[in-house]
């Protein structure tokens, strides 16, 4: 094995190995578990970064890969630049989330189960990122589906169980559709490997147009649930019963981004120009545009803080979908960049939700009056992330929206500008009131003088991570022009994805 | 506790009748269509009878050509015995006297008949080589002798331990397997009798099979038909 393939296998294997060790340790050995978890996460970061380096060195046609024979396609991993971007995002944020979760979960029960399945989820997300073909993608995709379930219902309350059932009711039939689509596609087109610019034979568009459209529908149905595409989004707000680290990493990054990442793979690296020719990407773009508006409007009406964030996620995910569905390299770059940008900003916001609920037991937006005094660092981080999502420069969100806007004109889809405009206004309308309440409303008496003297504003294992992610979000925007930033990386990838 | 109804309800009987009529029709048509020309394996059996080591065609099929069937068949018998023993209330197994008191006439008769039956079984065993007969017939007679003894009040003799009974039940199968493995070690295949030893080995197997079949039949009879046992249970001792 070369160091490239070692990094590739290690990036996927390290989280799974961590999970096995955590399960084997059992419930009561907290210190050992934390050490193993942090070591595993750190190792994973090293491996994904190495895989990204390898991908960049091999791009665009000598990506390192590794695999074994399975069925007619094979079970194989490949470090390419698009996948590496998602893998790095998931790996780095996992390390940060682990610190946060150790703090958040310090008084919760069933910690072995929690951290074990959490690691499985991260491993699956990285596996999804580094899959070389649809079969491998599907395998990790379904592992992710199943491993998320115990996390959603972690508290074991009837409400949690109900949320879990809702989640499965969406996710499992979607898996069935995805399976049928993948099998069918392989029968028509032979083993489908992901390849920049699409891997389907253009001749198929004339020989099997109906089947290709049906398969596209099945595949998008499959990944659309995790991507929370309207009308498949209903599980995401229901899944907010999960503990904060789950909402943060999984429901803002790993799980939902696995869905949009899948859409990107299918649209860009399987169908390629065929999607546009068959007219299916246009439909997808329209659906994404509608989801953006829909999610934002629904977010406005939520008083529950996490639910508001969840509907915001529904809308933001469709920015990515919209980007890859538009026939323009600039828009594609915008979508891919937003995958990383939104991750950093939204995880900050969910970290905030968890820190606030743990420290001052505030769960609703209406309880946030003057919270900025009580938890200044936390609310600063939150405000920064919120501004970013709204799209105010120089935070990261601005860059991706800018690329999307330019790209839509490039693709000749001017209506997208309108969607972006309306959405930004709505984003501002549901986030600015929170910022306003936190900083400008009169605080409760016990909050007025800030945290108790000599004490930090909360568990530092939770505050430090959220400050870090906010800083990362800011950096992604400020340094968007630097060669290794997600935005530049996305533009490099998009250039290959859209050669036509 | 109650009586079992003698017959199922009418709808079930009608349905059963319909099924039986269907199966019957299918079956009759099929048996009548069997051609009168298919000679089957009879010519092959005849051609190889010489090499089988026995003169009776059925015995040759049972012990040599399809000896593997017979090996498994002994396993079925043994299995049934273990099964029956596992169901018997005392699970102690075999050969407690069934009649509470020995009937003098029956006892005298049994004393006379039992040795004769053993002798007969020996003859049947030997005759199986060239005429209808063999281990199963011989074993049945041994079993009958045992049942007769048990019915007429003979308790298990002290020199037959429970281990000895288990040994008697399993010896046929064990010897059969041992011979089969021996043949393999000697360079043949499973149950491939060397031409010169075929007759001897088959007789060896058949002899021990006779012992086992006799013991098995007695055990089957006694383990599932001991009134004394049932009385004990009815008086309320069970579990």
């Amino acid at each position: 094995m070369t160091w490239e393939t070692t990094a590739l296998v290690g990036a996927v294997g390290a989280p799974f190995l961590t999970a096995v060790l955590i399960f084997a340790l059992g419930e009561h050995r907290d210190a050992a578990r934390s050490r193993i978890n942090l070591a595993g996460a750190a190792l994973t970061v090293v491996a994904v970064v190495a895989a990204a380096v390898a991908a960049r060195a091999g791009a665009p046609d000598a990506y390192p890969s590794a695999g074994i024979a399975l069925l007619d396609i094979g079970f194989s991993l490949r470090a390419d630049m698009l996948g590496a971007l998602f893998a790095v995002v998931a790996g780095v944020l996992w390390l940060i989330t682990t610190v946060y979760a150790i703090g958040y979960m310090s008084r919760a029960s069933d910690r072995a189960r929690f951290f074990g399945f959490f690691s499985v989820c991260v491993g699956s997300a990285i596996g999804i990122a580094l899959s070389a073909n649809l079969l491998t993608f599907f395998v990790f995709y379904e592992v992710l589906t199943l491993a998320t379930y115990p996390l959603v219902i972690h508290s074991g309350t009837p409400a949690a169980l109900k949320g879990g059932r809702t989640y499965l009711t969406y996710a499992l039939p979607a898996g069935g559709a995805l399976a049928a689509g993948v099998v069918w596609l392989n029968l028509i087109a032979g083993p489908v490997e992901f390849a920049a610019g699409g891997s389907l034979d253009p001749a198929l568009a004339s020989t099997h147009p109906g089947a290709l459209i049906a398969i596209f529908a099945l595949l998008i149905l499959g990944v659309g649930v995790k991507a929370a595409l309207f009308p498949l989004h209903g599980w995401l707000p229901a899944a907010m019963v999960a503990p904060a680290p789950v909402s943060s990493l999984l429901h803002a990054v790993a799980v939902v981004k696995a869905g949009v990442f899948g859409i990107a793979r299918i649209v860009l690296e399987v169908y390629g120009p065929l999607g546009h020719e068959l007219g299916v990407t246009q439909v997808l773009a329209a659906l994404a545009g509608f989801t953006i508006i829909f999610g934002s409007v629904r977010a406005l009406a939520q008083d529950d803080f996490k639910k508001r964030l969840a509907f915001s996620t529904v809308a933001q995910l469709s920015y990515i979908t919209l980007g890859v569905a538009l026939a323009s390299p600039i828009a594609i770059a915008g979508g891919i960049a937003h995958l990383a940008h939104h991750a950093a900003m939204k995880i900050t916001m969910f970290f905030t939700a968890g820190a606030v609920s743990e420290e001052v037991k505030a769960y609703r937006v209406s309880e946030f009056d003057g919270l900025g005094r009580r938890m200044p660092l936390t609310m600063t981080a939150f405000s920064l992330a919120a501004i970013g999502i709204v799209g105010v420069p120089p935070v990261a969100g601005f860059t991706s929206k800018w690329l999307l806007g330019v790209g839509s004109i490039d693709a000749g889809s001017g209506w997208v500008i309108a969607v972006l405009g309306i959405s930004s206004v709505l984003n501002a309308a549901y986030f600015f009131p929170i910022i306003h309440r936190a900083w400008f409303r009169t605080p409760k008496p016990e909050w007025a003088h800030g945290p108790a003297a000599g004490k930090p504003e909360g568990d530092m294992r939770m505050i430090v991570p959220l400050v870090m992610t906010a800083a990362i979000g800011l950096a992604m925007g400020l340094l968007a022009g630097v060669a290794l930033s997600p935005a530049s990386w996305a533009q490099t990838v998009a250039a290959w994805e859209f050669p036509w | 506790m109650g009586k079992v109804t003698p017959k199922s309800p009418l709808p079930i009987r009608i349905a059963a009748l319909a099924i039986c009529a269907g199966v019957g029709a299918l079956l009759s048509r099929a048996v009548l269509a069997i051609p009168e020309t298919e000679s089957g394996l009879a010519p092959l059996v005849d051609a190889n009878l010489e090499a089988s080591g026995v003169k009776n065609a059925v015995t040759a099929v049972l012990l040599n050509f399809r000896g593997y069937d017979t090996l498994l068949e002994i396993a079925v018998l043994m299995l049934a015995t273990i099964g029956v023993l596992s169901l018997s209330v005392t699970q102690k197994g075999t050969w407690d006297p069934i009649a509470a008191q020995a009937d003098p006439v029956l006892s005298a008769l049994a004393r006379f008949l039992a040795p004769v039956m053993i002798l007969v079984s020996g003859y049947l065993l030997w005759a199986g080589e060239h005429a209808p007969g063999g281990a199963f017939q011989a074993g049945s007679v041994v079993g009958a002798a045992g049942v007769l003894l048990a019915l007429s009040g003979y308790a298990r003799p002290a020199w037959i331990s429970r281990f000895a009974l288990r040994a008697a039940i399993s010896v046929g199968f064990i010897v059969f397997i041992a011979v089969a493995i021996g043949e393999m070690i000697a360079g043949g295949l499973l149950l491939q009798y060397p031409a010169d030893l075929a007759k001897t080995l088959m007789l060896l197997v058949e002899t021990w099979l006779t012992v086992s079949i006799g013991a098995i039949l007695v055990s089957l009879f006694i383990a599932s038909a001991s009134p004394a046992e049932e009385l004990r249970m009815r008086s309320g001792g069970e579990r």
Partner: protein
Amino acid sequence: MAEWIVRQLPALVILMPFTAAPLAYLLGAKFGRPIALVSALLSQPLALLLAIRVSRVGTLRYEVGGWGGPLGIDLVVDGVAAVMVLVTTVVGLFVTVYALGYFGDRERYRFFWPLWLFLWGSLLALFLSGDIFNLYVCLELVSMSAVALVGLTLSREALVAAMRYMLAAILGSLFYLLGVALIYGAFGSVDMQTLREVIRGDTTGQAALALMTVGLVLKTALFPLHFWLPPAHSNAPSPVSAVLSALVVKGSFYILVRLWVDVAQTAAFPGASTVLGVLGATAIFWGSIQALRQERLKMLVAYSTVAQIGYLFLMFPLVTGGGPAAADAWTGGVFHAVSHALAKSAMFLAAGTVLARFGHDRIEGLGGLSRRAPATAMTFGLAGVTMMGLPPSGGFVAKWQMIRASIESGQWWWAVVVVAGGLLAAAYVFKVLGPFFGREPEAMDEADLDPGPSPWTMEGAALALALGSLVLGVLGQPLLDLIMVSAPALVAGVTP
């Protein structure tokens, strides 16, 4: 020595448990336990060697008695036979290890060991037999040992279930034997290889096949002849339940497949394969819905078996047309049998652990099990992945092949059945998993909460089987290849 072993391999595989069985009976419970364990361990390399040998050289033919078919009886080891032997041997080992802990040295279960070893040997004999009359004897051996094992607890329910099972099994055997008689009468042989050349779909041939099919379907418990299975499989001692669901029902199914696909070639009987497929599909829905309605864990798992058996029968309509679809359906069906064997035995063993520890298996009383018995809850969850057919699991690979075969042969509706069946399976699996991850029932007092952990051998054996069913989903390719070694002509696409 090595050469001798290779030559005698098919016989050795069968003789191992058949030698151990009478010894375990003769020497009693004290020696029965180590004898069973030694036999189970020694069987592993033999089965593995057999599989390797078959994958290297193709079909092994062993002429018992040195006569060769059709006069004598042949043991025939092709790819699928080797696979079935392998799965029997692996499941057998873990069940044996589990049973050591489960039964302990309780005197009343001393008959378990010889009966179980007999069952083991009978299954191997069945999978290797190349003679339809010999298969009758094997079927009877399997049934009798299985029934005796069901009745082992001597509880009222178990005895009645065993009786029902016994009657169904004997009747099934008689139907089968009648078919054998007709086939011999009309075609003059009971050797499969000979029959393959001469069998025809005339009046007698069709009737014979119909009778045998009815008998075997009854023994396999295909809907609507499944009535005996749920009580028998749920009331048996759990190691026995595991073996029954994992292996025993596959025995009669295996003969059915041999007859249809290998000997008679389904082409001669086109309509019947559709009937079997429809019954299979009905079994999937009926079994799953019944499973959903159960309140006892073992009953739920037993009905799940009724449903999972249905998938096996989808093989028939998909194989009939030949071509690449037939090959996919063949590997899919056999792979399903294998992965279901591992996962279902794991589930029953897990249920047995629960039952042995808490004294009941009411699902509503098992809330929070993942806290009290994490390994057992995990076992159930992992095995559930295969039941649902989700990756990475053997069940997924099997369903992939079945969906593929459906689309390939233009019978897309079977693909819908496969996907829908997976969703129904998810419904009953999560009906159990939800409470496992949930809270403890309120009415529980401290003593109920923790009656003490089970022996690690029990939890470990069950978990190992569940993990095995997962590993098949990623590393299953060698097994898929082995299934196709010397596959029947209809499947391999060779014109006979």
